[in-house]
Structure formats: C-alpha cells, structure tokens
C-alpha cells in the first residue's frame, strides 16, 4: 500500500508537467520511475503521451503498442492512452482498447459508457448501437435505449451507409424507440428524436397522435426545435389548411410575429383544397375568397402594429406576389400601392431595401411608376431618418437600372451623386463615438460599387484608384466598417497591392471559425502574391495559422457530441456531426492547403521527404466530399440586378475557384508527386500511422486513382484562367512523357520498405512493426537500384507542348505586363510553377548512377535543354518585374493615381489624402513585383543544379 502511495506521489509531477506542456521533463520523470517500476503501464502510457506531444512518433508508437498489448482496464491508463491514440490519429485503436477492457469487466457501467463514446468519436455507429443496446439490457436505464436509437439514426445518415440500408435502419430505430417503457414525451429531446424518425418514415398519423397530445402541444409551444419539426410534419401531411388556421390564431390572438407563422398563414390561402389544379376556375374563386379574408386579417395586424412591426405590411406584399404568380390579379395597382405604403412607413429603416427586394422585380408601367415614385421622394436631408430614406431610394433605384441606363456617363454621374451626398451627410454622425458606424456609410459603399462597375465597363484601372481612395476616406470616418474593409481587400488585390489587402483583412480580426468562412478573401490564389521564395513567409504563415481551426475542430467537436449524449440533447447530435463534417471536409481548408503547397515548393528544397509527405496529404484530400462554407454573402451587393454582383465583379482574374479548380490542381500535383515518389500504395499502407479517411458508400464504384488523375472535366476547367489551363496542359504533357521511365526505374516496394525499416531502426533502436525485410534480391545493385527484367521503355522526344511552353508563356507575360500588375504576376508565378513541376518530375533522373544504369543520357539531354531555356526565361521575367517595380513607386506613378482621383478630390478628401493612398499602393506594388522577381532568381538557383 505504501509503495502504491509513493508511486502515486511520484506520478503527480508527471501530470503537472504534461498539463503545463513541459513534455521533456515529463519524459525524464517517466524514465526515472520506469527504472524502479519497469512494467508500470501508467508510466509507460504517460511517457508515450509526452513523446507524442514532442512529435517523437516512432518512440511513442513502441510504448503505445506495449501498453495496448497488455490490455489495460485501469481508468488512469485508459485515459492516458486515449490521449496518446488521439495524438497519433488512431481512433480505431482507442475503440479496440476500450472494447477489450469492457470485455474483461462487463459489469463496469462506466467502462461501457467509455466504450460507447470511443465508438461515437470514431463514428462507428453500428458498434455504438450494439453497445448501447447491451447496456440498456444490463443496466436498465432508459437513456441507453435512446443512445441506441440515435446511433441507429446516425448510422442511417452516415455517408458510408449504402442508401438502400437507410430505410431499414430508420425502421429499426422506430422499433427501438417504441419499445421503451416511458413515452418519449417525458423528455423534450427524446420527443424530438421520436418525431424526426416518424418524419423520415412518413408515419405522419403516428406523429399526429404525439403532436395532438397535451404534452406534445406544450413541448412544441416552448421548444423551437420541436415546433420546427411539427411545422414540417404538418406540411408533409398536407395539413396546410389546419396549420394556416393555427397560425392565424397565434398571429391574431397571441400577437405572435414570427415570420414562419405568416408564411404558414399565407400557404393556406393558396392550397388546392377540393379544387383539381391551380389553373382551374374553381381554384381561383376559392383563392379569391381566402385572399380577401387574409387581407382583412393582415390589414388589421398592420393597423394594430403600426411602425412597431413590419410583419403585417410585408405579409400583404407577399400575398400580392403569390397571387400574381398564380395569375390571380384583382387590382393592377395593388402591388405598387403596397410598395409605396411600405416605403412610406419603413423607408427610414436600414432593412427596408432588403425587405422590398423580392417584390420590386418590376417591368413596364409598374417599373416606371415605381421609379417616378422613388424619384419624387424629397432629397433634402437634415436628419438621420431622412438620410436612411435617401439611401434606400438610391439602392432601390439602382437595383432596377436597365442596360441603357448603365452607360459610362450615366454611371459616372450616379457615382459622383452618391459621393457628393455622402460628404454632405457625413456631419449627421459627427458626434458619434469612433467605434460606431456612420449613418452615411452606405452612400460611400454605393459610390464604391458604382466606381467598381465603371472599372468593369471600361477596364480602366483609374476607377479602382477612385474606389480605393474614397473607401479609405470612408474608413477614416467609420473605422469599424468591416464592409468597406472587405471591399478594399478585393480592390487592393485587383490592383496588385496584396499587403494593403492583408492589412485590412487583419483589421477585421477574423477569429476561430471565421477563418474557414472568410479567409478566401485573402488566401484565394494567394500564391500569386507569395514572396516565400525570398524568405518572406507572410502568406505561407497566414495559411498555417488559418488552418488551426481545423485542428481545433478535430480535437474539440467530438467531445461535445459526447457531452450531448451525456446530457441527452439528441436534437443537437446530428447538428454537431454535420458541423464537424462540414469543417473537417471544408473546401476552403483544402484550397488553403493547395496554396500552401504551391508556396512551399518555391522556398524549400524539393526532396523525396517533402514530396512523399505532400503526396500522402494531397491524396487524402482528393477523396474527400467537400463542403463549401465560404461566405460571399457578406459583401454588400448594390449592383443593378442585370449585371454581375460586386462579389463576381471583383474576383481575382474574374474567376472564382471552387471544387473544380481544387480538383484540377490536386490532379496536377498528385500525378507529378506520385511519379517522382517511391511510395506506391502498398508501401504507403505499411508505413502510414493512424486511421484512414472513411470512404463514402459509393466510393467503391470509382475508377482507380491512376485514371482519375487523368480526367479533365470541362466544368472543372471553367474555374481555371486560360493561363492556368496552359499550366495544366504543360504538366499533363510532362507527366505523359516521363511517366513510363518513372515506372520502370522506381524500386520495388520491398526495397523501399527495407530502407524505411533500416532508417526507423537507426532512429529508435526498434524494428519497424509489420514490415518484413526481405534479403536483397540477386539482381540488386549495392546502391539500391534494381534493373527490371522487362525491357526499358524507349526514350522519346519531349512533346511540343512541353518544349514550347516557356516561350509561349513569355510572350503571354509581355502582354499581361501591359494590361495590369496582377495579370503580370499571375503569368509570372505560373511559369515559375511550371519550372518547379519540371524539377519535381526530373528529380529521379538526377543521379549519375541512375543515368548510367538506365542509359538515360538522351532523355536527360532533352529535359536539360528545356530547363536551361526555362531558367533563361525566368531570369528575363525577373528583370522585367524588377523594372516594373521601379516604375511603381515613382512620383510619376503617384501623379497618374492622384490625377485619376480628381473627381473625388474635395476640401474633405484632400489631395494629400489621395497622394498618401497613391503612395501606399505604389509601395505595395513595388514590394510584390520586386519580391516575386527576386524570388524567381532564387528558385532558379535553388533548383537548377
């Protein structure tokens, strides 16, 4: 006993060290204790944990496997091991460990729960369900029954479950939930789960019984989530009529102003009750009656609420819109009358424009009448309410502008009108603290939109200068306006001033999950602006920091799924899992990863370690089912309906990258890396630690990876710029040309594994687990090269597309340099990337012995010539980027900028102010042009030996 207490005392400092992140001292303390207690599993587990945290994976693995082999049941050991295995990405082993422990102590309820949770974390819903069922039988607790029910539901919804199984599993869940002794409605979340199963199985009558029960009714009255389900089921059951009546009573009697009630109320007006179809006269007559009633109700609501609530008037508009779409028009003027009265009443609210947007899609007489109404709104502004009204007039007029009204002249007049009114009305917010937004902000934003549109019409950069300067002025007055900042981020990127874009992006302080939804603003095609080759890792670091959120997600979210189980919040569990999945398989996550890889290869030595590592990661990504969480809605959109919105107008190179872009780049990189790597699938399978990604149920039907890498779907290419397509053609040609030689020379898996085992043993002193080392084959040469029995592939001439790429693209560069800074950077960095592909693809043929053994002389000559030419061209480009950068920060360049901005230079927006913006833009452009140029020579000298 005393020795146990002594051990306990000695363990405490180890825990302390682990808690405070002093992993090294934890290892030292563990070693000391292990001398006295060499077999102690807890100490071993803790040491393994410290080692994982020190990134000493191989050493940790050895200990980890020792502890696992002893099949621990002790709580402290299990907990420590859970963390070790999580650190190693071995969730499946955690499951096995707990299952073994629970098997040894089947009456240990806590162990049962832990085993269940381990399965939950790993997403093993089927085993989770089986354990929960067993626990329910053994410990007779109702909640274990519900655990098994929701596990079944989750299994049904899992992407790895074939769709044919789904219904069957829901039926099983239904059988389980109805087998409980207590009814589900004793608990809100159990009730929610029950309803969701009934909805899925379309057992609406059964759901009705629950919903019409007094307890069911009271749950729905106080719980929004259950009420949502109730509404859904009612709709699916075609009970719109009853739901409409219910909604009406809530609106009229209880004063409920939830818009969902109004929608239900309106749905009931246009239902097919006894009428055959929507085009029948009977339907129209019935509708007319119901519409009249609805109108009376809504008018009363509007009257009662006055300015306090917009529901009534907005529902009247919605009623009119729906009537028109059913072709039931009583009164041609009605929609306009409602619009006008809505504007009279709520025109001084900021949301008025958004409220009316769905209803102002007008044409012909309606449009001209609406327009003249808006134009007649007095333009004198003395109060903030009048200002808001004026802003709404501008927005509403603008959204309906026609092509003939969008000429250069008309748009110029409009832009300067917005700007003038902005300056005039700024004093209305002069007394607000600087943390507040200015009431006139939207006028500056409107002016910014108009100038950006002028740029789109004319392609003249000067309009972007004006937009940038006026928004900078807007920020001076309204420092907290994140909308202006986001607009500036876009504009500065278009201007080729990435550091200014980054400054504004950082000023909005994106945090946590916002990194996923907003980082596209700054990291989309960021390798264009990366100076990583010169050692400036700003953008590369931004990629890594942004990606932290994905790590937090995989470490934290599953814990809350477990908590939701313990707290029986079943309604949340599927939501949490969806959230985790959307973040884990986020499109933006992998776009960032791709950009980071592109930057990384410009500044790190290309060797087999990096290539193998990236290859494995990129292959994982390739099979993901991506979710696009990027937020583009955040940008203001005040452009007329008939032209592209601000977001589309300001995408870099006019093309937003999405799934197709990512897949294309992945195909390019994976193919090149795979050719030059010695890792084939069998080697990877043996060497890789941790769980493999789960495969979707349909993934079995997919073509082999090799073939999928050669695909080039047209819809994917549409997301690429023409220059990116050129790079794709180049890399494809290159891979096609060299592929057969790679395949011939690549050492067989057994040799690669033997080498890996040797390295691992040198490092840890233990042999590599699961790898048998075969004796060196008889035809093996001492330096690891193995000539195959089959004949070597014939050496062919390089394809035209590869030979000509650099010269063609140089011409493209000269042209791009004339058009804009970003175009020049885009083409230049793509040429550099092509060069890096050339390096990756030819690395294998570098060593003299390989060339000699495989008689590759003529092949080497061919690609050497291409490389030399590429280096010359890159050096040329570097020089011209250097010259261009010198031109950017001259007084002359600034003069062009300030003169362009003359339409907005006023006593408020002074010449000095604009000059300062000009200077910042010039400096930023100089920096990136110079840096990319210098980086190129660096890349050439690093990679050209």
């Amino acid at each position: 006993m005393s020795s146990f207490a002594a051990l306990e005392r000695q363990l405490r400092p180890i825990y302390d060290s682990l808690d405070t992140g002093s992993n090294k001292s934890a290892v030292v303390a563990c070693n000391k204790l292990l001398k006295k207690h060499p077999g102690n599993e807890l100490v071993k587990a803790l040491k393994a944990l410290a080692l994982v945290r020190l990134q000493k994976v191989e050493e940790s693995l050895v200990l980890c496997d020792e502890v696992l082999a002893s099949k621990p049941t002790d709580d402290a050991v299990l907990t420590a091991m859970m963390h070790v295995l999580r650190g190693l990405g071995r969730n499946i082993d955690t499951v096995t460990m707990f299952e073994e422990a629970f098997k040894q102590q089947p009456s240990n309820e806590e162990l049962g729960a832990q085993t269940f949770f381990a399965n939950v974390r790993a997403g093993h819903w089927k085993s989770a369900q089986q354990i929960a069922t067993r626990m329910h039988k053994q410990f007779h607790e109702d909640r274990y029954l519900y655990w098994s029910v929701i596990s079944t539901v989750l299994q049904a919804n899992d992407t790895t479950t074939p769709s044919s199984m789904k219904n069957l599993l829901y039926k099983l869940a239904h059988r389980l939930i109805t087998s409980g002794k207590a009814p589900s409605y004793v608990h809100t979340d159990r009730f929610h789960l029950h309803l969701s199963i009934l909805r899925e199985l379309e057992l609406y009558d059964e759901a009705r019984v629950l919903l019409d029960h007094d307890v069911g009714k009271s749950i729905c009255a106080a719980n929004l989530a259950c009420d949502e389900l109730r509404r859904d089921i009612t709709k699916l059951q075609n009970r719109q009529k009853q739901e409409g009546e219910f909604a009406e009573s809530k609106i009229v009697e209880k004063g409920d102003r939830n818009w969902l009630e109004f929608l239900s109320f309106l749905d009931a007006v246009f239902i097919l009750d006894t009428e055959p179809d929507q085009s029948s006269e009977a339907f129209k007559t019935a509708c007319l009656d119901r519409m009249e009633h609805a109108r009376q109700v809504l008018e009363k609501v509007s009257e009662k609420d006055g300015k306090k609530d917009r529901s009534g008037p907005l529902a009247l508009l919605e009623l009119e819109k729906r009537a028109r779409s059913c072709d039931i028009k009583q009164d041609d003027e009605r929609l306009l009358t409602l619009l006008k009265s809505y504007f009279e009443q709520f025109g001084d609210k900021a949301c008025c424009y958004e409220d009316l947007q769905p209803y102002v899609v007008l044409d012909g007489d309606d449009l001209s009448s609406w327009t003249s109404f808006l134009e007649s709104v007095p333009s004198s502004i003395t109060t903030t309410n009048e200002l808001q009204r004026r802003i709404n007039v501008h927005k509403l007029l603008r959204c309906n502008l026609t092509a003939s009204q969008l000429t250069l002249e008309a748009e110029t007049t409009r832009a300067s009108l917005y700007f003038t009114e902005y300056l005039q009305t700024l004093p209305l917010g002069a007394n607000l603290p600087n943390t507040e937004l200015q009431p006139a902000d939207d006028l500056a934003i409107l002016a910014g939109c108009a100038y950006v549109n002028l740029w789109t019409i004319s392609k003249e950069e000067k309009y972007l200068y004006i937009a940038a300067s006026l928004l900078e002025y807007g920020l001076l007055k309204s420092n907290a306006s994140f909308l202006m900042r986001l607009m500036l981020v876009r504009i500065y990127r278009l201007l080729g001033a990435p550091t200014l874009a980054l400054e504004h992006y950082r000023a909005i302080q994106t945090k946590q999950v916002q990194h996923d939804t907003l980082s596209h603003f700054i990291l989309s095609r960021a390798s264009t602006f990366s100076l990583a080759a010169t050692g400036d890792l700003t953008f590369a670091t931004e990629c890594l920091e942004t990606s932290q959120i994905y790590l937090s997600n995989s470490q934290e979210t599953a814990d809350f799924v477990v908590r939701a189980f313990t707290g029986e919040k079943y309604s949340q569990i599927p939501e949490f899992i969806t959230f985790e999945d959307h973040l884990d398989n986020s499109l933006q996550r992998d776009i960032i990863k791709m950009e980071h890889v592109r930057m990384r290869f410009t500044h790190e030595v290309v060797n087999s370690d990096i290539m193998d590592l990236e290859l494995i990661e990129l292959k994982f990504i390739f099979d993901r089912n991506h979710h696009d969480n990027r937020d583009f809605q955040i940008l203001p959109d005040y452009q007329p309906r008939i032209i592209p919105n601000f977001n589309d107008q300001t995408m870099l190179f006019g093309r937003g990258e999405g799934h197709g872009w990512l897949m294309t780049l992945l195909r390019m990189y994976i193919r090149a890396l795979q050719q030059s790597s010695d890792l084939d699938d069998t080697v990877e399978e043996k060497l890789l630690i941790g769980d493999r990604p789960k495969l979707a149920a349909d993934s079995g039907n997919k073509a082999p990876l090799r073939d999928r890498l050669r695909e080039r779907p047209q819809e994917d290419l549409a997301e690429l710029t023409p220059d990116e397509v050129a790079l794709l053609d180049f890399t494809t040609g290159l891979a096609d040309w060299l592929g057969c030689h790679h395949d011939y020379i690549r050492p067989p898996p057994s040799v690669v594994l033997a080498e890996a085992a040797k390295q691992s043993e040198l490092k840890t002193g233990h042999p590599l687990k699961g790898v048998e080392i075969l004796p060196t084959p008889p035809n093996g040469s001492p330096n690891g090269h193995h000539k195959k029995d089959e004949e070597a592939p014939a050496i062919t001439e390089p394809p035209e597309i590869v030979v000509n790429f650099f010269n063609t693209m140089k011409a493209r560069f000269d042209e791009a340099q004339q058009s804009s800074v970003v175009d020049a950077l885009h083409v230049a960095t793509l040429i550099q990337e092509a060069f890096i592909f050339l390096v990756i693809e030819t690395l294998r043929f570098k060593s003299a012995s390989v060339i000699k053994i495989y008689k590759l002389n003529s092949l080497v000559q061919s690609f050497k010539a291409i490389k030399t030419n590429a280096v010359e061209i890159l050096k040329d480009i570097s020089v011209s980027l250097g010259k261009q950068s010198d031109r950017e920060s001259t007084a002359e360049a600034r003069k062009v900028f300030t003169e362009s901005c003359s339409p907005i230079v006023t006593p408020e927006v002074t010449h000095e102010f604009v000059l300062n913006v000009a200077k910042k833009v010039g400096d930023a452009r100089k920096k990136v042009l110079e840096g990319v140029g210098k980086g190129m020579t660096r890349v050439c000298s690093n990679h050209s030996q």
Partner: protein
Amino acid sequence: MSVLRPFRATDMFKFNNVNLDVWTETYGISFYLSYLSRWPDLCCVQQAPSGRMMGYILGKAEGSGAEWHGHVTALTVAPEYRRLSLARKMMDLLEFVSDEIYRGFFVDLYVRCANYVAIDMYEKLGYSVYRRVREYYGSLGVGKGGRDEEDAFGPDMRKPLSRDPGRRSVRPNGRDIIVSAHDVP
C-alpha cells in the same frame, strides 16, 4: 418581423454579418457547442426572410436554491437590423423558457457601464441593477478616449420571473452594491 428559430451549430458558418461588428466577440467552437450541448432551448436566432442572420441570443440556466435562474450570455443584433425590437423578442423567448421550462426565479445579465443604450433597453424590459461587478469586462471595457473608470463596473441586471412573485431576487439599491469579479459565479 423575422423568423425566430433555434441556434444551430452550423450557424457558426453564417454569423459573420452579426459577428464582424466590433462589439460582438467570436469565440472558439467549444464556447458555442458547450451552450448548445446543455441549453439548446435557450439559444435562438432571428433570421430575415432572405435567410440572412439578423441576431442571436445564447443563454444558460444556473445557480442553486433561490439563485436558480436563467442567464443571458450573449445577445447581439447586426448593425443593419437594429431598431426593430429584435432584442426584445429574443429576450421574451429566453424569459419564457427560463420561466416555463427551467422554473427559474429570475433572469440576469451583465452589461458594460458605458453601454447606456443597452442599460436603457433592459430597464424598459423590466430589469434593474442588482449589483455592480468590478472588472467584469476586464480590458474589454475601455471606452472612448481611453480607460473610463465607470467602464470597470459592469452592472449585473435582474428581472424576477413568475416563481418569484415577492420580487426577492431584486433590490432597489443595487447600483450601490459593488462586488469583485471573483465573488460572482
């Protein structure tokens, strides 16, 4: 006029227009999930008919004995949707659930002293200052023109619910009672 619906985990992908406002903090994933995994019925969203998020409230139920109550942790409305009584509607819901479901004695919340608009609004909703908490907002409370002394004293405001008909959970002289942040759970 807006859709009132539960706050969902995936709303974290959609709350930018609300959270980019300087006064609204974006916390880590675990902050939102810890509320949703325990008090999902005290967390809701107001959404515009267009689908845009207008604002949200996050709350919890805590305390023991006569201190058992609903607490408003975060209440926020995007700038363009202010002055539409959205905050009041979300507070109504939170009070209703705290009363009916959790049977709490009162609802409470903390405000920054400098946030006169908010204090005014809560007073109109029936809240009164129960005590002031020193340094509750820490360095976040720096108002205009540097550190404002008043800012350091965030009022803890309360409103009794139906279970406290005697209004024992509030007091008239709350403004004069100052406690340190350590004494507040």
